[in-house]
């Protein structure tokens, strides 16, 4: 039956596109078509959940299935507040049973073990398969283990990355809490692109905030693979003003690259130096989540090339990739971006399934970083579609000035967290 449906849809789509090319402003819909269409959304983070919800909001008759392997999602945004004891650990966890309730979204708790293109279906670990007309992948990130010599997955059990929410968040929190007086917290930061570009510097700020209260002779060293970083002017000002002498940022111009990490002794060896640490937090180089590779939508960069008009993969038709996994530069990888992309992608899919041209996306990313528990700075970008290159172009951008209103932004940051949590997981 589904096979028949898909063929029916293809015919409708072709007929309407052919017609629409000469008269694109005229909507062409066939009543009832969408009700037979199936969209599978894989990955229940900020991208996936918002995509599933947006699809149902725009087209209630659409059959939407969300596949997620975990029963509980532990978010990473906001986890720096937990690592530094400002908020309790349990605020990060969200039960899928509470999400998407009453929205007629089928939630399948399973792992995807294969993605077929013809016929279009995803294969599940428990043996079943889900047919799709359009598949949205929102797999987030996975790590390039051993891209830094000495730092593999097993090393992360004692030397946390804490770049995915959960046990790792707790581990780093515990290590900072039990560090010896006057100890050194060392954070290593990878080259772009990676999840949450300003996140490492927010982390350094909030760790320094914690240490200034409980371990005032301790230090934070940020060992960066980049020569400049997001919101650098405001972060630098905050560090001088709020935590004088406590945070040291080291550029690769001084250090060279990380050569290897001696995980047993917690020493980071760079080309020109060595840095012993009491607490070592290695944020490893990253790539699109494993599921993207399984579906054949990653390229040699490890990320997923897409056409941001629809977020459809440039490598596999019918598969859309959103969130951290996709290459949507100049948009950074963030929860805000993922939500924004989820909404644009869903609108495009509803248009495609109705035989209409997708609307031009206009996307925003806006990321807050706390510099202390109540004050925040932000970076903003507005992005439009550049048809000639099928990519996004920055239409405007900006960040909080060193003398900006951090207190008001701190209030907005807390309210924004509440909003995105409620819209995503509520």
């Amino acid at each position: 039956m589904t096979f028949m449906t898909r063929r029916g849809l293809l015919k409708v789509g072709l007929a309407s596109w052919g017609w629409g090319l000469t008269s694109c402003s005229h909507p062409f819909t066939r009543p009832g078509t969408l009700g037979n269409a199936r969209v599978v959304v894989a990955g229940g983070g900020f991208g996936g959940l918002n995509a599933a919800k947006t699809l149902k909001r725009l087209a209630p008759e659409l059959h939407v299935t969300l596949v997620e392997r975990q029963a509980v999602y532990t978010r990473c945004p906001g986890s720096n507040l937990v690592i530094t004891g400002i908020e309790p650990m349990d605020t990060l966890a969200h039960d899928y049973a509470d999400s998407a309730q009453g929205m007629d979204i089928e939630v399948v708790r399973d792992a995807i073990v294969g993605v077929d293109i013809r016929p279009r279906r995803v294969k599940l670990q428990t043996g079943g398969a889900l047919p799709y007309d359009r598949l949205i992948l929102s797999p987030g990130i996975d790590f390039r283990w051993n891209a830094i010599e000495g730092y593999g997955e097993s090393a992360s059990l004692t030397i946390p990355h804490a770049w995915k929410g959960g046990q790792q968040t707790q581990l780093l929190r515990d290590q900072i809490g039990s560090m010896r007086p006057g100890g050194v917290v060392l954070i290593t930061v990878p080259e772009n692109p990676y999840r949450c570009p300003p996140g490492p510097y927010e982390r350094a700020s909030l760790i320094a905030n914690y240490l200034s209260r409980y371990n005032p002779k301790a230090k934070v060293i940020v060992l960066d693979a980049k020569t400049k970083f997001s919101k650098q002017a405001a972060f630098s000002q905050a560090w001088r003003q709020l935590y004088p002498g406590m945070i040291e940022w080291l550029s690769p111009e001084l250090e060279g690259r990380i050569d290897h990490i001696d995980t047993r002794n917690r020493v980071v060896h760079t080309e020109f130096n060595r840095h012993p640490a009491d607490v070592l937090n290695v944020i490893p180089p990253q790539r699109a989540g494993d599921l993207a590779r399984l579906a054949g939508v990653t390229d040699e960069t490890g990320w997923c090339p897409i056409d941001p008009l629809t977020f459809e993969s440039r490598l596999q038709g019918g598969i859309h990739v959103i969130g951290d996994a996709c290459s949507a530069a100049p948009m950074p990888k963030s929860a805000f971006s993922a939500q924004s992309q989820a909404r644009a992608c869903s609108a495009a899919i509803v248009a495609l399934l109705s035989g209409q041209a997708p609307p031009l996306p206009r996307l925003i990313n806006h990321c807050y970083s706390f510099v202390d528990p109540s004050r925040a700075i932000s970076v903003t970008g507005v992005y439009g579609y550049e048809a000639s290159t099928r990519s996004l172009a920055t239409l405007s951008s900006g960040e909080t000035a060193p003398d900006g209103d951090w207190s008001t932004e701190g209030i907005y940051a807390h309210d924004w967290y509440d909003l995105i949590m409620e819209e995503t997981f509520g």
Partner: protein
Amino acid sequence: MRMITHLGIPLLLLLAWSSGMHSAWGGIVNDESLATGCAGCHGIHGEGRGALPPISGQPLGVLEKVLRDFKSGQRTATVMQRITKGYSDAELGRLARYFADRP
């Protein structure tokens, strides 16, 4: 029928990706997609949250003036002056009307 399925996918991709089609593809700017970004902070219904102000159902003239003044810098804010510069004056007018018309 099977032929249609097999030919259909590549043909669809060709339609989607051939460079000559862009005047037809993506030529439609609808208000909903233009407003998507606003929802990131003001909520999917423009209802606001805490200190993040509601924008739906506000008087059209007020929304138009506020957006225009953010863009020109006459009205200061933490982030809105950055965001409004990413939209043309006509687009800001459409956004004002879109949110004014919402409950």
